[in-house]
């Protein structure tokens, strides 16, 4: 049985990855699961300099989901290369580094720095709703997507993935902008902008007002957008948003995703990624599917 997929030149042993920001740098979940079994690990979003992130509260439970306002807390790209990458190098798993610049130059700067051994791919994060500069502000603008992608592609040999925001009218246009900019793949969706209010104090739950919604609640929306993106571009699409089971993962793949990522549901079930991989295998056996690539984009439409 073949589980291997290729995402923009990058060969993954299976299509199941972790979603940026939900899996740290692999260390913590490494105590629960065998990281070698994953298709890829996508690490927490990095910035040029260390970033403290947003003040608490940073999380709020919502019906079948959660809002987060982490705000890209991380120790910076240098600390990543020095302290986290060596740890990840010890595993036989593709490593994709999520970068979040405040300017085009910052994206290029980080991508260049990360054009090193042990890094397999760069995920351009133009979709974080929790920062004041950069993030989603870029991602809602096809021109910005195009330009950032182009500059990043110039300075790296790695597979370049553009992570799109769902907070747009037409996801196809955004995916196309990434493709035109030279992206090797797009990934989606990042969190959906949401909000919560404390009715007793009549204040927003989050200081930033807006936070990012993730988890099973958003799955139907994510699936629709992945389908639309896959129809809009020829490059591979990595699908995510609320995946909690192999069934969800298969929906995304049938809709056209070449790989999938699991985010929030890791929190609820640390074994989620592994169970998804096992479930996909069983589905393939049951349905006599030899090669997982037969599933991708296999949606029958009349």
């Amino acid at each position, binding site marked *: 049985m073949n589980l291997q997929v290729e995402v923009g030149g990058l060969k993954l042993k299976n299509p199941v990855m972790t979603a940026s920001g939900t899996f*740290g740098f692999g260390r*913590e*979940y490494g*105590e629960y699961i065998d990281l070698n079994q994953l298709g890829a690990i996508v690490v927490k979003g990095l910035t040029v300099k260390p970033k*403290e992130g947003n003040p*608490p509260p940073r*999380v709020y439970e919502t*019906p079948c989901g959660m809002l987060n306002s982490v705000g890209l*807390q991380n120790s910076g790209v240098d600390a990543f290369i020095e302290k986290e990458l060596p740890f990840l190098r010890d595993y036989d798993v593709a490593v994709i580094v999520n970068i979040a610049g405040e300017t085009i130059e910052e994206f290029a700067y980080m991508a260049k720095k990360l054009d090193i051994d042990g890094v397999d791919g760069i995920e351009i994060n133009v979709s974080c709703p929790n920062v004041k500069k950069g993030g989603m502000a870029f991602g809602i603008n096809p021109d910005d997507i195009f330009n950032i992608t182009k500059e990043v592609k110039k300075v790296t040999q790695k597979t370049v993935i553009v992570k799109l925001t769902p907070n747009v009218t037409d996801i196809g246009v955004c995916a196309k902008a990434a493709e035109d900019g030279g992206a090797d793949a797009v990934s989606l969706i990042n969190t959906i902008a949401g909000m919560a209010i404390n009715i007793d104090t009549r204040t927003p739950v989050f200081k930033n007002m807006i936070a990012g919604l993730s988890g099973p609640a958003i799955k139907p929306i994510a699936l629709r957008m992945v389908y639309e993106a896959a129809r809009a571009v020829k490059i591979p699409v990595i699908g995510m948003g609320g995946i909690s089971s192999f069934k969800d993962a298969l929906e995304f793949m049938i809709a056209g995703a070449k790989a999938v990522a699991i985010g929030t549901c890791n929190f*609820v079930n640390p074994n989620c990624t592994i169970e998804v991989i096992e479930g996909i295998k069983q589905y393939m056996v049951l349905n006599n599917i030899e090669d997982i690539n037969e599933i991708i984009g296999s949606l029958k439409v009349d």
Partner: protein
Amino acid sequence: METRILSNEKIASGIYKLVYEWKGGIPSPGQFVMVDCKGKTFLKRPISVCSVDDKSMTIVYQVKGEGTKNLSEMKKGDTIEVTGPHGHGFELYEDKNVLIVGGGIGIPPLLYLAKKIKAKNSYIALGFKSEIFLVEEFKNLGEVIVTTEDGSFGKKGMVTQGIEDIIDKIDIIYGCGPKPMLKILQDISLKNNIPCQISVEERMACGIGACLVCACKVKKDGGFAYKRVCKDGPVFWAEEVEF
């Protein structure tokens, strides 16, 4: 880990004691477990370990919202999903004079601490709004002082009142309870130059250090940083915490 409930009983109004089978790791005092409260809740809830033996673990919780309400409705024989122990607990030192200060639902983890710590002398200050719980269990573990806000049991007032009277005898303070109480302990600790460890609370998602939502503001190099309550804490040195 899926485990079976052995008992789940009310021990005060809105306060329940839940015992379940436990074959997992042995926690250190101050550590917590993540509990799936079922129903419509989505994320697991962090609850401190109150006690553990070779077969079972006990947690004591207060009904706050949907999760703890669901928990209170579970019955003996039901199964629940519990992971842990998680987090960085209290650092224990032998042969010291310790002051343990607990407020309300912050008291349960301190029972486990009081049992485990090999202190020279333990002074245990327990504060409640009105109704008391778990006080009996502390009886043989040190000199227990109970305070209630309305005076219905023990001294009337706040649990932190009177600490300064005995502070000269104390080598180290341990605290768990509401934020204002922890803040007072921090003040006392700094003023009297006595080390103090406090267990802080923040909403969690992963509970294991991967998602960074459980930020606790700590002093760092003249500025500040956010540490993870679930991994770097929940227990921090009082002096480093920024309230």
